């Protein structure tokens, strides 16, 4: 036996373990479950434990029979509730993403232009709420927005309103909750692209007589585009399927698809229908997710 690098049994075992262990884990606990969701979305709900019918049944008379049904999907299309849920979720997530961008872009820009060590401190301040509990952050907004909440108290003391505004349990509160929860995801990628902007470019443009608006439109905005797209997707994707934000801050009429799925499962106990809702949600999300993945791949050298 020489010590030259011909792979021995031990080496092959090691290689197999490094690849095989996480591979097996993720295949079992991440990939296989999706196959099950897909399978159960074609089943009938029944009163049993677990509450869905088998796709393949066997009996003496008929042998094996495939009993798949498209009923769940047909129901999703026919009952307005689900289409409205998908549509409203997309609308709410999109508007919230734009609001997040409008707030996050100037913030990231300001941080990128702040000299060290303040810059790191500001970044830390933006990131800090992300590390605390998101449930408690939303709870804090319940305290802010409720009828006796801080915002209503301040507005009434200032004499601006005479009766408290209803903000909590409306879509406005949901927008605030989404922007609040995902703001760090918008600011960080924007900051990373804006920080790399070369100050010489600005000077050159200004020397050539460009106005601040022109500089922003023709230099800053195009250069920041990768950050805008990455940040936008990082807000839009989780916002679209969010459950706790509409459940805690939204009203009964705030139909978002994550909440509809959750209620279908926990309140109506219709597992096959909830699975069908999940399959369609995944189809809605597949375009933005693929876009995000290809963006991540591009960035790697």
């Amino acid at each position, binding site marked *: 036996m020489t010590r030259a690098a011909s792979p021995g049994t031990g080496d092959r075992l*090691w290689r197999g373990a490094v690849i095989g262990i996480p591979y097996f884990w993720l295949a079992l606990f991440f990939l296989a479950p999706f196959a099950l969701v897909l399978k159960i979305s074609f089943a009938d709900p029944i009163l049993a434990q677990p509450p869905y019918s088998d796709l393949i049944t066997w009996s003496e008379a008929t042998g094996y029979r495939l009993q798949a049904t498209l009923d769940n999907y047909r129901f999703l299309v026919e009952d307005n509730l689900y289409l409205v849920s998908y549509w409203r979720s997309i609308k709410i997530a999109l508007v919230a993403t734009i609001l997040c961008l409008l707030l996050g872009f100037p913030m990231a820009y300001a941080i990128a*232009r702040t000299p060290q060590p303040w810059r790191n401190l500001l970044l830390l301040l933006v990131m800090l709420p992300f590390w605390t509990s998101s449930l408690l952050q939303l709870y804090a907004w319940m305290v802010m927005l409720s009828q006796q909440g801080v915002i209503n108290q301040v507005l009434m003391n200032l004499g601006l309103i005479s009766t408290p505004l209803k903000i909590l349990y409306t879509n406005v509160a949901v927008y605030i909750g989404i922007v609040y929860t995902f703001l760090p995801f918008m600011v960080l990628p924007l900051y990373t692209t804006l920080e790399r902007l070369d100050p010489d470019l600005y000077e050159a443009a200004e020397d050539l007589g460009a106005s601040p608006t022109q500089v922003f439109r023709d230099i800053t905005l195009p250069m920041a585009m990768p950050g805008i797209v990455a940040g936008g997707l990082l807000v839009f994707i989780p916002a679209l399927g969010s459950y706790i934000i509409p459940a805690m801050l939204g009203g009964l009429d705030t139909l978002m698809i994550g909440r509809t799925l959750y209620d279908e499962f926990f309140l109506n106990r219709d597992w096959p229908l909830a699975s069908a809702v*999940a399959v369609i949600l995944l189809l809605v999300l597949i375009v933005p997710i693929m876009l995000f993945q290809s963006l991540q791949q591009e960035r790697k050298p």
Partner: protein
Amino acid sequence: MRRPSGFLCTVLAFGLAFLYVPIFVVITYSFNDARLINVWGGLSLRWYRELLRSPEIIDAALLSLEVGVVSATLATLLGTLAGLALNRMGRFRGRTLFSGMVAAPLVMPEVITGLSLLLLFVGLKELTGWPHSRGFTTITIAHATFSTAYVAVIVQSRLGAMDQSLEEAAMDLGGRPFAVVRDITLPLIAPAMAAGWLLAFTLSLDEFVITSFVTGAGATTLPLEIFSRVRLGITPEINALATLIIGGVAIGVAAAGWSMLRSRQPRPEQAGPREPQALR
């Protein structure tokens, strides 16, 4: 470097106020003796006492800590292996599928992950009798699975940015792959693993949706307990709990973040040997 304009500074100040005012409001109310939030009943620690006297909260917090420690450790193990597999093992069959499975949990809606894992646990029980009941084990498996993705991303970016010449030298000198990883790679990526563990631990402590799908009777984590209390409205004990959690996290993150940012500042003795790599 030019300074930010007045407009940018104003928006930044507004943004930071937006982020921090609700937190400070909750902290203030946690010391309010009155039950209602529109009345100031004077300073008191009443709600902290009530919090500590509530066995449900204490039990839930303990369960959350247990799940957090075990699932973060599992996720660090799996995530580090996944990072090594994607960054040091070259090509292997099914690599594309594998890298997809590693990255996908990051962007998967929690309702889908939660529903699908529950269906798996129910299906497995039908098939094999395991898991007999849902609770600590199923929650821990679920948390470890989504946290693995976060650890893998952190470890991968560290492995990608690392100078590989030390590992190559060790291989050239006849080091076996396992020994090289143990003696060279692991010590070098240890900070990334620690950061991954911390992130996995925090994510686990905060997870609500997936947990509510995969839990069973009797296993209530802290987020489940908090949610069941606040969905009916404002509860003063939760103000106190929020203050404790936010305070604890803030101190921990501020300390960790600050030390990390300081150590990231380039030191001249480290900048030197990296340059030849860029030429290759």
